[in-house]
């Protein structure tokens, strides 16, 4: 069983080696000539004001929360989809109920304005 995952680890290893190779190459080969202006955070030429970690819109947070809700639901749908033919109408009705609950969540978010980016 675990041997099926051995190539995956090898793949990750090779990919990491490729990425690390590129990373080390540029770190070693690239020149380092810092100047005071270069070390400033880039802000289209004007001097930077205030902290660079700005306060951001709460919409990003809401999107992240919605992602957690809906992505976990997607993880529940996958095994059902793979066994769909065996489960037949019973499984289908069960999934309709599950999706209905989800649709209600989506409609609630929609009505509450969590999906509006203009306001």
């Amino acid at each position: 069983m675990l041997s099926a995952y051995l190539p995956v680890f090898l793949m990750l290893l090779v990919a990491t080696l490729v990425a690390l190779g590129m990373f080390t190459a540029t770190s070693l080969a690239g020149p380092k000539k810092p100047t005071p202006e270069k070390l400033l955070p880039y802000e289209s030429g004007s001097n930077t004001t205030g902290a660079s970690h700005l306060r951001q819109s709460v919409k990003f947070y809401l999107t992240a929360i919605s992602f957690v809700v809906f992505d976990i639901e997607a993880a529940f749908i996958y095994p059902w989809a793979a066994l769909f033919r065996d489960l037949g109408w019973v499984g289908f009705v069960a999934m309709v109920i599950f999706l209905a609950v989800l649709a209600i969540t989506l409609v609630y978010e929609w009505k509450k304005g969590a999906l509006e980016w203009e306001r």
Partner: protein
Amino acid sequence: MDLFTQILLAIAKILFVVIVAVGAFAPVLLWAERRQSAMMQDRVGPHRAHIPLPRSVVEGLRLTLKPLEAGIFGSFFAAGLAIVALVILLLSSRETLFGQEAKTYYLAVVGFGILGVLARVGHKVHGGIVESGGKIALLGLLHPLADAIKMIFKEDFVPPKADKLLFSIAPILTMVTAIAAFAVVPFADTLFLECATDVVPRDVATVMACDGSGGVATAIPMQIASLDIGILFIFAIAGTGVVGAAIGGYSSDNKYSLMGGLRAASQMVSYEVALGLTIVPCFMIYDSLRLEEIVMWQHEAGIWGIFIPPLTIACVLYLFAAIAETKRVPFDLPEGESELVGGYLTEYSGMKFGMFFAGEFVEVVVLGALATVLFFGGWDVPFLYRSGFDLPGTWELVIPMTDWVIQDTIALQHWAVIVIQVIAFLLKIAILMWLQLMIRWTLPRFRYDQIMKVCWKGLLPLSIANILLTGIIVLLWT
């Protein structure tokens, strides 16, 4: 097989995939994209990178031009004479002409025709090199390579107030996740090692070894890892890719980077949900999460997913979500240069920037490969089976005046079948990449609120509706 052989095999397959995806597809895609942009803006585009040739070699090439011209003329003239001879043979009902059978003339037409075309191509290539004074430019295909070398020798800048660890991890994470997603993609049918130079029976479950030992042939899946979670692996890996963009923006100590990183994270997680749900109808119809079984289903049914009605809808939705997931135009808000300079890439330089860049192109290849597997039959070539081609019907075509026959079944050796399948798979990916490129240069950039709206209010309800539709159709028909 013992563990050592398995590891060696896995590494061979991994190298093949990495060389094809990272070493060939991504640079060519980059080249095609810049070439197309140059065409649209009436510029010459990426063409200056070249390998210079010494003066004496150029003079030598200049001498070949005249003989090549004569060669083109001579070959096509000879092919023309052979055609005339064939026509005479056909009209006069004679067996031979000048003591030669019709077979000889057929071979002459094909042979001299190919020779003429080769001479023509050679003349054009040599002429181009001579005219430019000895520069081998290969249409500008060397440009991505030159870019990579340039990026490695650029200053590796790290902002003094940046989080050094996260700043370094971000590009590595992007690159690793982009490459690793290939691990479960099948690129050909199972290879039966002992039968590589034999014709394998078409519809047999267990293929016997062809060396006469009576054992079962060693089956080597043309896929790096055959996992029972299959597609979930790709989403797990792609989901990690979000972190790369997000922490890259967060750790840069730059306002543009932070905004770009937040936008990237928000957009990618949103479209990941949509992407995950759009392809659920595929699993309901193919009855599996394993990519190799999905391709096998399409191969055995003789129909590609996109031609099954619910999956046609799923395919359109998938391509939409996939392009948004790769953060490319028209969805490139996280790095939209008109608003955020370089987005989450602003403070990156040198090959670290290049790694984000390359990662993005590799992601395009991955999602193209996934679309190929799910909707375009993967490695399946119409009418090509394990035993070779089997065209519909029973017929045979006799070439006039010879005993050569073309039949509806053409037996091919096992290795030839596998090679054709691999080429077909790569070709399909290339076509899908071209499609994404056309979309990239056709549509203008959306606004951020429009992107999020179309995901949560458009794609998500539509894909849920498509799941229900597929369920009803499948249950009513079976």
